[in-house]
């Protein structure tokens, strides 16, 4: 043991900080952690989430905090979309910062990597952008506030069927988890709705040439085409589809990834007519949403996206749960999370028994015209 602890001390001194026993945090703050992708290609999503939760945090603390006047102290760690860095961050937040709950991480793969460990350590983790099937099955401390796409996609499919679609071809990026789970849900939703799937094609997220797949699809003449991919490849598919002669007679449906203003910016007129299901829309006419958009613009000078909205609601819900738990204790907060309800910018939010969002009431179908989404007629 002696020799072992010597090598550990040596390792500790290499790591420098954090060796000394930390003075416990001032008793009037409640430490909460967040792990998001703040650098690298995926960082726009993580930064939106950080902005949303930070805005909610300021509102909560300005309104007197939680547990009768204690402020929430939020530590946001960068995972850089790297599994190891996400695990390191979670261990640091729990081991050193003694957080009572963690919001995040941004990506499903990171969630699957760190949740078994945090669950074992009995600290609640609440994903705000996790859509993969089975994520919250890891254990009783694993939550998410993002609607699994199972709740979002059927709305868009029903709209397409109402407009006469009977057959559909599905195209998806099979190397990206977000796109893959979107596709899985599209497939199930189409089968349940009675829409006939006549072809399934795959590509990689960074592919630029989709002509082979689209030519094959064109030969099969589907009424609708579902694209499950992030925004850039979705735009690429649409641009090439128009070049190959797909016209207005084919309805295009997008997954959650296509639900971004960037789609219109990249694809221009080629994106006209594409429909997406969305848990949130900027022009949603509720008092909560209007107040949120105004506050977000004041603080950041830009409009929020759905990721910021989801994170904003999640932070408010967590504060409610801490209050209800009556103590800064992860176990009690977990139990409180199972009970709290709130009416936020996304609509009603609470957890079902599987720790997924209980309600999909807020889902809307959006359609793109001249580069902008609006609520589909």
């Amino acid at each position, binding site marked *: 043991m002696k020799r072992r602890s010597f090598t550990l001390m040596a390792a500790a001194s290499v790591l420098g900080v954090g060796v000394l026993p930390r003075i416990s945090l001032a008793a009037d703050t409640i430490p909460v952690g967040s792990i998001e992708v703040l650098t690298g290609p995926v960082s726009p999503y993580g930064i939106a989430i950080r902005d949303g939760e930070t805005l909610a945090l300021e509102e909560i603390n300005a309104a007197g905090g939680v547990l009768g006047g204690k402020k929430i102290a939020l530590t946001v760690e960068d995972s850089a979309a790297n599994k190891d860095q996400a695990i390191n961050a979670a261990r640091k937040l729990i081991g050193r910062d003694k957080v009572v709950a963690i919001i995040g991480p941004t990506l499903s793969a990171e969630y699957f990597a760190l949740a078994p460990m945090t669950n074992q350590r009995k600290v609640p983790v609440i994903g705000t952008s996790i859509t993969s099937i089975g994520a919250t099955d890891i254990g009783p401390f694993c939550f998410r506030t993002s609607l699994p796409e199972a709740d979002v996609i059927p709305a868009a499919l029903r709209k397409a069927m109402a407009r006469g679609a009977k057959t559909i071809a599905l195209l998806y990026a099979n190397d990206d988890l977000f796109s893959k789970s979107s596709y899985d849900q599209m497939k199930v939703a189409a089968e349940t709705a009675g829409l006939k799937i006549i072809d399934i094609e*795959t590509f990689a997220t*960074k592919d*630029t040439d989709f002509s*082979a*797949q689209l030519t094959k699809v064109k030969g099969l003449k589907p009424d609708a085409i579902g694209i499950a991919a992030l925004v*850039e490849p979705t735009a690429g598919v649409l641009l090439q589809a128009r070049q190959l002669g797909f016209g207005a007679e084919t309805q295009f449906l997008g997954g959650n990834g296509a639900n971004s203003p960037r789609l219109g910016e990249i694809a221009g007129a080629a994106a006209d007519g594409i429909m997406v299901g969305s848990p949130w829309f900027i022009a949603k006419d509720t008092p909560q949403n209007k107040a949120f958009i105004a506050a977000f613009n004041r603080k950041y000078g830009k409009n929020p996206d759905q990721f910021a909205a989801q994170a904003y609601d999640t932070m408010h819900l967590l504060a409610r749960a801490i209050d209800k738990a009556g103590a800064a204790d992860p176990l009690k907060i977990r139990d409180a999370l199972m009970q709290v309800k709130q009416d936020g910018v996304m609509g009603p939010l609470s957890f079902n028994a599987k720790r997924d969002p209980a309600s999909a009431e807020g889902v809307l179908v959006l359609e793109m015209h001249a580069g902008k989404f609006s609520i589909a007629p």
Partner: protein
Amino acid sequence: MLAQQLVNGVLLGATYALFALGFTLMFGVLKVINLTYGFYFTAGAFAALFFTRYVVASVWLALPVAAIAAGIIAMACDGLLLTRLRRRGAPELSSLMVTVGAVLALNSAAAALFSPDIRRLPVGLVSVESFNFWGVRVTTAQFLVLGASIVLVGALIWLLRGTRVGVAIRAVAENPEAAGLMGINTGRTAALVSFVSGALAGAGGMLIGLNFNAIHPYMGEEMMLRGFVVVIVGGLGDIRGALIAGLMLGVVEVLTAGYIDSGMKEAVSFAILVLVLWTRPSGLFGAPKLRRA
């Protein structure tokens, strides 16, 4: 549908051939696998992007700008990274390792500087219309890629076969020491070849970025795998081989995606690479010669 797929394949193959052209030239003359080649491709596309966005939105001016910018970068990279090793007579793996490190640093720096978002050249730079030939559709951009590839290949062959400079380049490719003794300035020839290869890469980057509506810091890296397959299958340093192999790879990929499974594209190109390495390592069109009998 088969006709359209074949056309798709040839057009995709033309982009591969265009990409591999400078890469194989660089190896043929300078005898180094230069992984930073992918970066020149990206640099050309970005030069065209900024030029068309902030100076003049013209394809005909942007193309030489992209080529010259990438050519200068290629010359600078060669001067900074490889000239020293060449003079020292270092083993070929040292040069390869230097370019491996350099390309990681350059790509990551470009991503940090320009953000990894996908951008596109201004809408309307070329007509987005597509022409319909008996049901087979080809876009203006695709015609442009095909036409430019043919012109660039022609220009390259003229440079190598029809000019004094070409004689010097071919002499250095054959035997650098002997060329040096015959009074050819090998240093200047190396710089020139770097410039020409870089310019080909830059022009390719712009045209392919235009064709696929996608310009981003990793676009060169994405092409490198295909680039390797094309130059090995065509024979390292063999320009004609690279052209044929590029077209072949494009057609094979499109047919795989169209008739077998779109997920198998990469696996097929790599299977071809390994197969060629096992059976005809000096390329499909070269004489099979081994270093060790």
